[in-house]
């Protein structure tokens, strides 16, 4: 494939634009007006989106994958990693999702963050995030991907801890970064393995070298190791078992951040990375199985936690973890395009859900506890309408977006193992239940919250009008909600007739033809998914609308089981007891107080003191006193004589 055939798309402009925005707002934003900051932030993120659309418009004329060299970075004998860009169908999808949803969330943030004193700082970080995320999805090699990977982690750290005067926010940011670093451990070693065995990190060269290798069916080998290590990295970034614990805490960040970074884009980077490496995974069935099992378990496990949460953002956080689990399940069963499909629709409806939640929180003056909400649908009808659409979409009610992508995953999972499918369907039921629970608790019944106080939420950045009742958000926040609602409504139709799969086929390979017998199975399974979604809806309706006294009774009757779920299975406590505390205590007591001070340093000081004592004694011998010398001489003579007598007796 001759790269000269391709027009120059100047892909490098796309990440550089938000970087410029971040730099301008970061350096000059403090003194600039809010309007100026807004203009810069929206212009540069919008321009990136526009450029991405231009790329998409010219996409059909390209010979793919498209390569673009930007600059040298690291050159070692036999190995190099440059700043280079890579575009194929997969990166195009990611590019459009990141810039599109990213731009919408920028617009929304203008309204949400308007009253925050660090308005400029927020947009500087948000643009910085876009830069790193785009670096990640457009990377032409693993090392550049790793730059973006670490960079989005940094942006996430800064934005989770955006309200850094709150201790919980600062701690959450730190936790996210460190847990991600644990995952990066796997990613880094995987990169070393790739370099060692393939001499390159460029996608073309690595995949070119991997394709002829045999599938590691009998015994796990190099590719299996690489796959599992990559998955360790993905578990960190995409919040999968066992590294998911940072994501619920990350909800300390401003809600637009949760929408953009912790739902729509950054957390899907792991799915993207695994899909990008599909050539490796396809030759490592064991690694794929690991991916599928982790994904399936995470989907189910996080969904069950979602049932009992009362913080609206925490429900959505566990829901995100669960939905990411679906995406990994898809990758694990080899249905990468289904995973990416779900990634895209999830970006629409979960982005919408978070933005809607932000609008709700904004309406009720910073309250996040759903027990203090209720009846909001008449106060904030637009937010309600859009969130209803998103809820239907995530619950898998046809013909909304989530139905198509989730069903695709479940169908593909069924073909590999009905067990995956079974857990997936149960999870779908739970998903539908907790999402409608959220909807009913928030929007139906009577308003249970306090009157909204004008100054009741000074720690949050959103505006307050001082009205006595919940109020609808401004248009700048509602328009992004409506656009995302539209996408959640119709976004699934790109999967109609396998369009989406066929579009990605050059990357992932074409799907096998399905015979009519299994086609009827597919329809049957589809019916089951729809049924469980509706059942979840009905159950939530029963419990939270018809008989609102029931949930408490059920909770009481379940007792400790319920408490375990409310406390998220005590996983945070478990990690603290098993990893954090021993590490801290061990470092403090054993390494620092005992080894360092009582053993090593004490030995050093003892050596010094010992030398001092010896020399002190020796010094006393030379007192200049004749009698003392005489005493030493006689003592010495005595010793010598004793020694001679002893030797003489022995000799006999």
């Amino acid at each position, binding site marked *: 494939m001759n790269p000269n055939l391709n027009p120059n798309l100047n892909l490098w402009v796309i990440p550089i634009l938000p970087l410029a925005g971040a730099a301008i707002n970061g350096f000059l934003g403090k003194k600039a007006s809010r309007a100026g900051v807004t203009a810069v932030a929206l212009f540069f993120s919008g321009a990136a989106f526009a450029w991405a659309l231009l790329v998409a418009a010219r996409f059909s004329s390209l010979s793919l994958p498209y390569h673009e060299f930007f600059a040298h970075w690291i050159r*070692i004998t036999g190995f190099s990693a440059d700043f280079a860009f890579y575009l194929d169908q997969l990166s195009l999808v990611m590019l459009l999702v990141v810039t599109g949803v990213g731009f919408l969330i920028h617009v929304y943030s203008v309204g949400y963050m308007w009253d925050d004193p660090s308005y400029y700082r927020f947009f500087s970080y948000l643009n910085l995030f876009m830069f790193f995320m785009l670096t990640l999805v457009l990377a032409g090699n693993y090392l550049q991907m790793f730059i973006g990977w*670490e960079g989005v982690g*940094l942006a996430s750290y800064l934005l989770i801890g955006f309200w850094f005067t709150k201790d919980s926010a600062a701690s959450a940011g730190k936790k996210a970064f*460190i847990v991600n670093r644990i995952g990066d451990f796997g990613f880094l070693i995987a990169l070393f393995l790739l370099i060692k065995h393939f001499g390159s990190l460029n996608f073309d060269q690595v995949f070119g070298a991997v394709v002829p290798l045999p599938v590691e069916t009998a015994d796990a080998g190099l590719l299996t190791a690489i796959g599992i290590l990559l998955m360790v990295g993905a578990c960190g970034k995409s919040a999968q078992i066992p590294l998911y614990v940072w994501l619920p805490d990350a909800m300390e960040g401003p809600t637009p951040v949760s929408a953009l970074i912790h739902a729509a884009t950054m957390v899907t980077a792991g799915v993207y990375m695994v899909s990008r490496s599909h050539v490796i995974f396809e030759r490592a069935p064991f690694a794929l199985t690991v991916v599928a099992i982790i994904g399936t378990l995470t989907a189910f496990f996080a969904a069950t936690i979602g049932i009992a949460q009362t913080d609206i953002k925490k429900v959505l956080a566990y829901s995100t973890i669960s939905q990411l689990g679906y995406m990994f399940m898809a990758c694990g069963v080899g249905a990468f395009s289904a995973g990416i499909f779900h990634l895209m629709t999830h970006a629409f409806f979960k982005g919408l859900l978070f933005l809607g939640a932000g609008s709700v929180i904004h309406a009720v003056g910073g309250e996040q506890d759903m027990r203090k909400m209720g009846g909001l649908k008449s106060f904030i009808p637009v937010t309600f309408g859009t969130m209803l659409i998103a809820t239907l979409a995530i619950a898998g009610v046809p013909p909304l977006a989530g139905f198509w992508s989730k069903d695709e995953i479940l169908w593909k999972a069924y073909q590999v193992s009905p067990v995956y499918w079974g857990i997936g369907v149960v999870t779908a039921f739970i998903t539908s239940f907790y999402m409608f629970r959220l909807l009913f608790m928030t929007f139906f019944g009577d308003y249970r919250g306090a009157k909204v106080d004008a100054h009741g939420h000074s720690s949050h950045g959103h505006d307050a009008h001082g009205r006595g009742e919940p109020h609808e958000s401004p248009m700048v926040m509602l328009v992004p909600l409506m656009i995302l609602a539209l996408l959640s409504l119709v976004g699934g139709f790109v999967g109609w007739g396998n369009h989406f799969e066929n579009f990605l086929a050059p990357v992932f390979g074409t799907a096998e033809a399905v015979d009519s017998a299994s086609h009827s199975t597919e329809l049957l399974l589809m019916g089951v998914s729809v049924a469980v979604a509706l059942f979840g809806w009905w159950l939530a309706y029963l419990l939270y609308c018809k008989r609102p006294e029931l949930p408490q009774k059920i909770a009481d009757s379940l007792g400790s089981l319920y408490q375990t779920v409310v406390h998220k299975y005590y996983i945070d406590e478990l990690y603290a007891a098993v990893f954090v505390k021993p590490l801290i205590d061990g470092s403090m007591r054993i390494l620092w107080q005992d080894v360092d001070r009582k053993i090593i340093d004490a030995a050093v000081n003892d050596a*010094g003191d010992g030398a001092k004592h010896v020399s002190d004694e020796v010094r006393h011998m030379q007192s200049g006193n004749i009698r003392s010398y005489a005493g030493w001489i006689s003592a010495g003579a005595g010793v010598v004589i004793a020694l001679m007598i002893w030797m003489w007796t022995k000799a006999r």
Partner: protein
Amino acid sequence: MQNHILSIILFTPLIGALVLLFVPKENKDAVRWIANIFALGGFLVSLPLVPMFWAQRFDATQHFKFIEGTANNWIPSIGAGYTIGIDGISFLLIMLTTLLGWISILSSWTAIENRVKEYYVWFLILQTGMLGVFMALDFFLFFVFWEAMLVPMYLLIGIWGGPRKLYAAIKFFLYTLAGSVLMLLGILFLYFHHERVTHVFTFSIPELYKTAPQIYSDPAYGPTIATLLFFAFFFAFAIKVPMFPFHTWLPDAHVEAPTAGSVILAGVLLKMGTYGFIRFSLPFFPDVLTHGKVRGWMIALSIIGILYGALVSLMQKDMKKLVAYSSVSHLGFCTLGIFALTPLALSGSVLQQINHGISTGALFLIVGILYERRHTREIAEYGGISTVMPVYATITLIMFLSSMGLPLLNGFIGEYYIMLGTFMVSWRWAAWAVPGVVLAAAYLLWLYQRVFFGTVTNPKNEKLHDLTPREVLTFVPLLIMAFWIGLYPKPFLQILEQPATQIVQSVTNPQGASAGAMNAALLQQPETAQAEKGKN
């Protein structure tokens, strides 16, 4: 100029010290100005070396460049010479020294109020001592500089230090001196061995390169003696680095030293230990490293240092102590890179030494700035500093990220090269080292959270003023370097390519290298292939 550039760089600080002697000590501002002029001058005269060295970076015909003086020209009767010369490794360390020397002296302007004149005199003498260590090609000269630089550092800690300054200063002095004594024995052994083989008395390092590796296979001495000699040098360097378990002088010295002293101590002095390993231990004792268990021990100590330093760092309540222990961890990466014995890891190690000088030097400046304002380094005394000192908080964050190895900043490149180079030898070694990177994020971000995040709870912190222009100026060169190395490391790695390859070859392939010692053209690197062709 080209012929004497090294001497000019070497003696500019010393001339500054001599000039200062004639300035009345009551006139503190004059002393400060003159010291700063000579410090900046010392940096400026080193700049012309950059293009000169750059032009010769691939020249493999001679390992050492800009050589001044011939062997034995100083004290011919014992074979000592004023011979100086540099390769890419010493070149980068010299540039780091002149840069950090200038920054440290600039940062002392308001921090030092007592005995100002003496302070600057000793500081400038220290500067010459450190430069001499990196330039000397004669063991006698090397040892003179090595020991000479102890005295000013001892005085800097002992006079301008904190409350336990005497304890720390004496500990520093005795500890390093103990190591040096063993090294002196080692040097004398090599010196007499050289005479035995060649019948020439000389301390010339390039000459000793030819004979010292033979001790191992010499029937008169053999592997045991060679190993003992290796350890004679090892103690001197391991204490200096410091490698676990010889590190306990470091936190004490750092905590008590004035800020500028800490910057130089961490930034440059520790590098003399790693430099010693690279310059002497590797080429002198190749067989000791390639046979037997010695190398495994070195690797094990490095890995313990990485993890141990990081874990202990996590627990510190004093900011300076925390940074000091983080140095133990970072230097563990550097020694790991050295003993991995691959050109990649060795280049990474030297680059990481430079990075550590930049990042940790900056971290000590950062701590010093708070200390100057509040006279405490207790982490618990702070909190919410981001609100009162936003510029300071931003610079600190960038330097923390650089220190924890975030891509696009300098620390990443060094650590990546070291771990990749090590991985090529043994994946286990690399796997043990990687948790150090995770822990680095933990101790630095936790420190950042406790000092900068949260609300200002201590009323004493409410009125802290942000950085002054002079303080910002001290960080500017370090920030530029951090981003430069992170974004475009190629020039640095090109400079290191030739010496790193030759030194590793001299260890792993001593037969091939021994004939021409360090001067054999051994490179088969693609980027130097052209230079090779032109030469042949």
